[in-house]
């Protein structure tokens, strides 16, 4: 029984980071049909920012907001310089642009930080394990789940309770009509890139706190997981992003817990096979929405 609870906590911790990443991606996709393969690189840059700041003696509690702010601004700058000029372009143009952005910011990272792994040294409390009702839970997992829950709540509050959020939802549905209401498309775009960047900043810290080391190519795992979560949940809906992220987390942790030892090495392949099976059965994803853009 305690094993099951422990696995659920593991799954929530892993799944909630995937869900956050998928939310960040789906938000930008819904407004400009951009499938952003450079997103994982945002996490990497947030991680490097954390290392640089900590090395410079910035206290941990100040480093966190600075890192998130850095990722937010970086995302807005990239959105403004690289993606905004292609607004309204075919999805394939945006997709290829995102690969170009990925390569550019990856090679800048290689030039600046080198190919060797850099270690993110966090206060020792993050490595601790606490025992709650007989279940041993890593502190980092608790922090991850708590942070993700807060982030999701803030995300939905912005989207559903603010004028900005209404503008984002309206622009995702009918961008031209939104302009007729006097909403500047550029501003919606910048807000969306800011939110998605802030999410990348937070997830980047959580992700590399867990992994421990960063290289300029560390973006691959989070990018792939986020896209699987996105497709699994159903592209373009925030509900789908949440469901897909949590489902992928559950799938990974469930596989790790139940597969026989000999099969553990094949876990990623088995997870992907399961994802393919789910998509054959439910092509629109678990979230139930259709992948087709509204218009």
């Amino acid at each position, binding site marked *: 029984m305690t094993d099951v609870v422990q696995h659920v906590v593991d799954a929530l911790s892993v799944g909630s980071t995937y869900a956050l990443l998928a939310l960040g991606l789906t938000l930008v996709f819904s407004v400009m049909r951009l499938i952003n393969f450079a997103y994982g690189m945002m996490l990497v840059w947030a991680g490097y920012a954390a290392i640089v700041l900590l090395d410079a003696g910035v206290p941990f509690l100040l480093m966190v907001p600075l890192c998130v702010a850095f990722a937010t601004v970086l995302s807005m700058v990239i959105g403004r310089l690289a993606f905004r000029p292609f607004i309204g372009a075919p999805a394939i143009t945006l997709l290829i642009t995102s690969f170009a952005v990925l390569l550019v910011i990856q090679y800048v990272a290689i030039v600046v930080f080198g190919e060797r792994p850099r270690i993110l040294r966090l206060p020792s409390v993050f490595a601790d394990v606490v025992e709650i009702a007989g279940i041993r839970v890593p502190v980092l997992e608790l922090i991850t789940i708590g942070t993700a829950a807060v982030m999701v709540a803030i995300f939905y509050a912005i989207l559903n309770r603010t004028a900005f959020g209404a*503008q984002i939802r*309206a622009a995702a*549905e*009918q961008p031209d009509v939104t302009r*007729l*209401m*006097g909403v500047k*498309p550029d501003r919606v775009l910048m807000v969306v890139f800011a939110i998605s960047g802030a999410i990348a900043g937070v997830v980047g810290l959580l992700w590399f706190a867990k992994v421990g080391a960063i290289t300029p190519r560390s973006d691959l795992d989070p990018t792939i997981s986020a896209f699987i979560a996105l497709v699994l949940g159903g592209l373009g809906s925030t509900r789908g992003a949440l469901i897909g992220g949590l489902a992928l987390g559950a799938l990974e942790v469930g596989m790790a817990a139940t597969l026989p030892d000999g099969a553990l090495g094949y876990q990623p392949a088995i997870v992907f096979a399961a994802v393919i099976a789910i998509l054959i059965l439910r092509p629109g994803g678990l979230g139930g929405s259709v992948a087709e853009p509204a218009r």
Partner: protein
Amino acid sequence: MLLEVDNVVAGYGITKVLKGLSLEVEAGESLAVLGANGAGKTTLMMTLAGLLRPWEGSIRLDGDDITAVPAEDRPALGIVLAPEGRRIFSALSIEENLLMGATALRRRFGAVEARRRAAAALERVYAMFPVLGDRRHEGGANLSGGQQQMLAIGRALAAEPRVLLMDEPCLGLAPKVSNEVYAALRVLRDEGQSLIVVEESSRRALDFADRACVLKLGVKALEGAARTMREDSRLLEAYFGIDAAGTAP
């Protein structure tokens, strides 16, 4: 003159749709723009709203040239389009749809005054269309076609238009519902709202408007007081391509 369209040429890609169109709307006046499919009615509306940039010619509001003002800046000037097909936001509640319409008030009046005016606009729309008030927190997708049109009108009104542009407000609506739409437009007209309404074929539009013009292949084929045009056989000729003797082409 409130709104002046001077010799506007506009189109899509290499297709020229409006071929030198001029028209005017005075403050408080209602203008019906009629024409068959392809006459350029929607192109005219898109050009007035700023979604299309004219190739030639100019658009002036109160004498100021606004030809180059982009679509998102026109509501703040008071030019507001309720587009063809209603195009309400189904992901937003009725109230959020109306508040979206009020977005431009902020730039026109400042934040505090805009909030007051938006609240007043909501009350006004709910008084005009009580069904919207009763269901204000419901999603826009659940409304019938007629109710969606009312929401589209309300959303445009929330911007406090100086010129309200209505593109085929009765498209796809039952006759009874169309009459209700025009009853609402009549109330607005009587309150002094300047408006341009575009219709393919509508006795209602002629009954309603002060003045009417007929577009044919991107130019103005006929213009006059709506009342006299209703009785004018030249209208049929210009509009349906039927000659005065009544023989079909």
